[in-house]
């Protein structure tokens, strides 16, 4: 009889209720090697899970639920204030946006270089944006043509408010390489 019980205990799955194995230890025959190992694996499993959970907690700690960030939408005056063919620098300092007007309309270019996030300078004489950090160059449209930048500058959502003022919304971006510049809100027809 002890023989049979022992076999049974020894083969229990790790999820079996602990008392069976505990009871086994009491009847004098001691913990068998197999049951010992199943206990060890439960223990290790619990330890690893707990440690993993702890590190997940610590990792999640670095991502707060609320961010206190500057406002992302602004009014940029009426379209008449912008000259066709010009790159307007007035919002560069405060909001990080160039407003460019060409013959067809107005678009809002992000001033963040797509390479590593420096702010390029508009060189009017050469009609290009040139990044001082690693030398990326962009045409007036935002298309990259020299240096390491992997893709064109991003454009922001640009629409007209009811009062005829331009609203630039930086929370919505349009990327040329994804074919989003054709989107009606990526471009303000005038």
């Amino acid at each position, binding site marked *: 009889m002890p023989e049979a019980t022992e076999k049974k205990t020894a083969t229990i799955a790790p999820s079996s209720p602990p008392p069976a194995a505990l009871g086994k230890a009491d009847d004098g025959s001691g913990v068998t090697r197999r049951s010992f190992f199943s206990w060890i694996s439960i223990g290790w499993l619990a330890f690893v899970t707990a440690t993993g959970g702890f590190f997940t907690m610590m990792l999640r700690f*670095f*991502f*707060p639920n609320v*961010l*206190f*960030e500057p406002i992302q939408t602004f009014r940029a005056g009426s379209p008449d204030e912008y000259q066709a063919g010009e790159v307007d620098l007035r919002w560069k300092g405060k909001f990080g946006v160039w407003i460019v007007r060409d013959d067809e309309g107005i678009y809002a270019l992000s001033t963040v270089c797509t390479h*590593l*996030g420096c702010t390029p300078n508009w060189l009017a004489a050469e009609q290009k944006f040139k990044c001082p950090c690693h030398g990326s160059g962009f045409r007036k449209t935002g298309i990259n043509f020299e240096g390491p930048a992997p893709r064109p500058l991003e454009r922001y959502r640009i629409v007209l408010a009811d009062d005829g003022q331009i609203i630039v919304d930086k929370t919505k971006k349009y990327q040329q390489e994804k074919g989003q510049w054709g989107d009606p809100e990526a471009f303000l027809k005038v």
Partner: protein
Amino acid sequence: MAEKKNLLQRLAEGQIWTSIFRGGGVPKSRRQRMMVVLNSVFLHLHPVRLPKHAVKLKFTWCMGGLSFFIFLILTISGILLMFYYRPTIEYAYTDIIDLAEQVPFGIMREIHRWGAHAMVITVWLHMFRVFMTGSYKPPREFNWAIGVVLLLLTLLLSFTGYLLPWDQLAIWAIAVGSNMARATPFLGHEGPGAALLAIGDINFVTVASDVRFALIGGRFLGEATLLRFYVLHCIGLPFVIMIFMAVHFWRIRKDGGISTPV
């Protein structure tokens, strides 16, 4: 036969002195000199005896020791700087100016800054010396690896310190550095493979959940970035580097001390 003793000798044999420095007196015999090293918590980092080339500057260049000493200088000057510096965008820059102009002996930041440059150089030269003497060869392979980690931590400490003055140099160095994190494969939102970690339209790696965010505490450089780098610079990384230094020094002894020709 009463020997005539001067005041210094009396002091050195008195109760106070001998209670602090076991053995007392100036160590003169071989045995006394060995005991000095063994009995001091600071000196017993060293073995009692060394191969003769280990004390030659031509061989060691003293670069490992200097790196450690500069680390101590940086720790002390860094603690002093912390008494005045506030890690907020409003105050950081002006506090740095005040440290030079309003604080007596206002060269602590200079010592800290130049010390940081010097430590990078001494750590490099130490690595160079260890390579040239083949001292990374068995049984010291593991300690070489620890040393590489120490080099990396030295660079990271210096890099996190760069942001703290919150001047032009600071934010653009960090802007570039943190945007590199953005390009980490799978973990950064503009890294290769990040777009694959998505279910349907929901991306898991976005500008608000990637490794860059964890580093700078937001989607843009700002208040949270300064605080994170400050904590990493003053507490986080020094804590880690001290653990690795302890292992490094311990292993020098355990691997048989300074390397010698077989």
